[in-house]
């Protein structure tokens, strides 16, 4: 029973360790430092978005738009730098602009959810279509190319051998953890997601907090967009961000965030993203046949989460 408790408390961590061991045994290259760094690098984009998603979901919402939202923000960043010229100042300026616009659009979705009383699924499904449509329209279905080498270098930069996206991601995890678990705002996010009526009766400004979660979502998407678009030096209007919503929600849910709100942890989402990243990496490392990748992935995800529930079935 003691072991069971440990497994269930750190269930996802446990699942992760098992995964890593299996992958390491089957393919020693998996455990190379370089590969571990790569995994963190690869999950950083989805991971950052998933952190924003965690705020939104704990507050009782959902955001389906993140994929196309990211493409839009990436395009915005690239176009702004292109317009402002290849200087450090213009790169910083356009990063700030992109984050501001992301926050604003997030606030827009949040406003429609909170004040318009439209289900978040509908609002963000609509936003998903709208954003993608805008991205496609301005690029005519093509690619936004960065003409600034300064901008493109950010995403590829390394500090102490560690890629910048990874560093940003880890810092973001820490900051988000603190905000969610150590601040008043974070407490309120849990409260409105767990019991909106009680929150209302406790003099919490439910609408404001709800909108704020979407603002955080928008900022997260922008940061991720800046990292990915600078790394790739481009944004494809048709494919960038496709399916990200599912991955981001999956990372949060695997990490224990509940779709109905009030429950979740940033560390959980971090581990959830890591599980997804390890699976994807492992499939390539082990050269799993193309058509069977889905099978393996599906089975691993289901069993990893099942492990967490050992206690509940007591």
């Amino acid at each position, binding site marked *: 029973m003691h072991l069971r408790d440990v497994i269930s408390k750190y269930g996802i961590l446990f699942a992760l360790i098992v995964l890593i061991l299996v992958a390491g045994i089957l*393919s020693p*290259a*998996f455990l*190379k430092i*370089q*590969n571990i760094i*790569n995994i963190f*690098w*690869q999950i950083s*984009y989805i991971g950052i978005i998933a952190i924003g998603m965690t705020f939104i979901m704990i507050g009782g919402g959902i955001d389906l738009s993140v994929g196309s939202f990211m493409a839009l923000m990436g395009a915005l960043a690239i176009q702004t730098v292109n317009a402002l010229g290849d200087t450090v100042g213009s790169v910083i300026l356009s990063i700030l602009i992109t984050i501001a616009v992301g926050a604003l659009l997030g606030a827009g979705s949040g406003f429609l959810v909170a004040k318009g009383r439209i289900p978040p699924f509908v609002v963000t499904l609509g936003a998903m279509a709208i954003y993608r449509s805008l991205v*496609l329209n301005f*690029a*005519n*279905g*093509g*690619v936004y*190319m960065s003409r600034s080498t300064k901008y493109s270098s950010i995403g*590829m930069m390394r500090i102490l051998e560690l890629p910048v996206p990874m560093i940003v991601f880890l810092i973001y995890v820490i900051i988000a953890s603190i905000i969610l678990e150590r601040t008043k705002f974070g407490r309120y996010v849990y409260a409105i997601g767990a019991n909106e009526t009680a929150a209302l009766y406790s003099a919490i400004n439910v609408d404001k907090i709800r909108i704020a979660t979407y603002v955080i979502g928008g900022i997260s998407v922008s940061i991720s967009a800046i990292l*990915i678009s600078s*790394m*790739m*030096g*481009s944004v*494809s*209007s*048709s*494919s*960038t961000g*496709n399916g990200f919503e599912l991955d981001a929600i999956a990372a949060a849910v695997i990490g224990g965030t509940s779709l109905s709100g009030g429950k979740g942890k940033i560390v959980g989402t971090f581990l959830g993203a890591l599980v997804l990243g390890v699976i*994807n*990496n492992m*499939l*390539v*490392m082990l*050269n799993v046949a*193309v*058509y069977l*990748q889905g099978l393996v992935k599906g089975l691993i995800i289901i069993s990893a989460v099942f492990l967490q529930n050992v206690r509940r079935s007591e």
Partner: protein
Amino acid sequence: RIGVAIPAADHGWTGGMVWWAQYAIKQYAKDSTLEFTLVTAREPSEQVAQVQTLLAKGIDALVINPYESAPLTPICVEAFRKGVYTVIVDRGIESEEYNTYIAGDNYMYGYLAGKYIAEKLKGKGNIVIIEGIPSTINTERVQAFKDALKPYPNIKILAQQPGNWSRETAFQVMQTLLTKFPQIDAVWTGDDDMLQGVILALQQAKRDKNIVLVGGAGQKEILKMIMDGNPLVQIDFTYPPNMISTAINLAVMQLKGQNLNGFYQKGMPRKIILSTETITKENAKDYYFPDSVF
């Protein structure tokens, strides 16, 4: 009135096709006798629905790139039987009931790439395949590629992984493969978009030397590299998204009763297979359309 039905832009090449379709339609903008309806679908049954709607709206010609061959067959046949001039683009249908068929050559697309790599490596080396999203076309190309390698037993395929026609995915897959394999001599990607992701991964790992890279479909940035004599990429094989423009022109000519220049026959040819052309430094500028999105 002409209806044009193609898959939605969900990666570079399909984006290119949508662009070229719009491009062709714009050419006829001033011609008041022509009216175009362009629709894009994300899934076969959605495309069936769109063609149904086009038929209900009333069209004289249908130019369609079927999302998948078999599922779209019944509705294309229905259009044909209703007397709509039906032009099938790229993916054939499982029936002979259509007017004209124009397509690229998937087999040679994969085969030529394989052959080039084998010769370039002098029949010996380790290669990696990064393919697209699993689909009929993808399977055919990969098969052809492998066929081309058959005479070369010393060429070893280290890994074959999907890159989903996406730069980002291809980048990540290549990143991982580079850590796993210390020696990779050549990479073939299903299209040029993924090739760019691969190049990025190579640069990042500082292994962008002494490696043979082949993509395909003539994406403009890759063509630019070839034109500029970039040593990384020296060759490309066409699979032109502008076949849709040709198809639209064919439909217009048919409706206007024109015939093809140089053809003694009246009417349009029934089957056109565009050959996979090889692009090198010498001829690259002929394929380079800076305005196009692909």
